[in-house]
């Protein structure tokens, strides 16, 4: 399973990162060597191993169903690059 330019283009689309055409060859080279390194794992037979599901041996802790947050619209909006008094504002979405 090697990584090539097409896969990188596909993945960058999924990750919403546009990749500079001029940089794509270098990127392909880097990622190929990283994947070659990663694929050392294929030497190991893991057929009988369960994947790790959690690093902690703790139960999931619950929260009570109480309203104790919200009503901080100004704080929520204050760091936004574009907003009005009530909303975050983004370029038009095309459905």
């Amino acid at each position, binding site marked *: 399973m090697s990584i090539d330019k097409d896969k990188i283009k596909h993945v960058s689309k999924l990750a919403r990162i546009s990749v500079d055409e001029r940089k794509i060859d270098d990127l392909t080279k880097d990622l190929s060597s990283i994947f070659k390194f990663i694929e050392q794992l294929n030497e190991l037979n893991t057929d009988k191993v369960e994947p790790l599901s959690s690093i902690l041996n703790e139960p999931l*802790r*619950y929260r009570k169903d109480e309203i104790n947050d*919200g*009503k901080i619209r100004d704080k*929520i909006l204050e760091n936004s690059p574009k907003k009005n008094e*009530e909303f975050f*504002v983004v*370029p038009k979405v*095309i*459905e």
Partner: protein
Amino acid sequence: MVGKVMNKEKGKYLIEGEKGKWEVVIGLEVHAQVSSNSKLFSGSSTKFGADPNTQVSLVDSAFPGMLPVINEFCVQQAIKTGLGLNAKINSYSVFDRKNYFYADLPQGYQISQYKNPIVGEGKITLDLPSGTKTIGIERLHLEQDAGKSIHDLDPSNTYVDLNRSGVALMEIVSKPDLSSPDEVNAYIKKLRSIMRYLGTCDGNMQEGSLRADVNVSVRKEGNKELGTRCEIKNVNSIKFMQMAIIYEAQRQVELLESGKSIDQETRLFDTKKNETRSMRSKEDAHDYRYFPDPDLLPLNLNKELIENIKKNLPELPDQKKERFINNYSLTAYEANVLVSEKEISDYFEEVVKTSDIKLAKNWIMGDLFASLNEKNISISQSRVTAKKMSQLIDSISSGVISGRTAKEVFEIMKESGEEPDKIIESKGLQQKSDPKELEKIIEKILTDNKDKVEQYKSGKDKLFGFFVGQVMKISGGKANPQLVNQILKDKLKK
């Protein structure tokens, strides 16, 4: 074009194409909002209708370093709903991240459950005109709702409101066991009814508490294999679901009959144009890259918790239906209607606590339902409360008013919400039930119409009705009909 070629034979829904008959196969993914105070992973309110972005915490808007903590109540409600669907509760389940970019998805992923949902297979029984049908439930899982993108406030921008972001949803996935728009109607209503009985979801479709993604495919009649399906996203009323299915099935039949194939895709139902269309913007987002959310641990449910919830489960529609048939001698049809909504069954049971059962069911299913339809309101919004309905029925049973007068009283009640006793009193609608008074009236009528009395006695039986009519006319409709009949019969014999 659409709807013309529908054909119902023996209750089976088929589409008659140019080249044969086609069956429709439908599966639903219902998104039901958990009736909780706060969100699935944060402490902000879930209340409907608040000002934009006022019910948003730092967690809901995905600020750096914010972490989810799960709402215990939501987990319990999912278990409860699972039990109400006769489903297997999974003691081990996992929260996964579903990754995609959208303006109203602040984290860039939705926390959902993918491989290991909290609830496994179950079933729902539908009562259809053709009999009962069991619809399989594939799974139920918990997930976060997204926010809302508003496209029509500004010509060049989209506005984002995150009030709904993080609200707990139960996604209930059916097997592809539904085969007509009518079955979809029955399924949604039954599912909603079960959740309302349980109190786990208010089922309010106008407020978006219940929405569905509808999977539609078609196949030649009798064919066992499933066709390629299309998913119609986020339909928020039963009527639109039905319209979308009718349109989509027809579209697919036409495509297949012209030798084309169906693309498995996500489609949108345009309610204005009554058509479905491809959602191109979602296409490249299909690869959701699910993986277990490392900010959360697996959810391990202990047996006692599940048993405890099971023990405290309320009576559900199917059980109540059985009880109504047995205790109140209702027909299966009547029982079905009366248990269809928890509010209706509660209303019925309150009325029959003190009042006549037969009158109660007839009045509720007759005049009351008609008034609800006319006003487009639910039973709990009616001004005729169960208590008032009981009073009305009791005045019929005790002979204070006739059934006919009762209808008059009801017409006033449904508008003003006045008590029936007060209406009867103030309008003087009580029946005349004093035999001496009635005898006086009847004697006068018989004296004034001697010729008709002769004709009656010589065999013209039909004239009996004329005499009754005269009594009613003179008494202003208030004479007790049973008493009038009895006195008239006695007098005319002599």
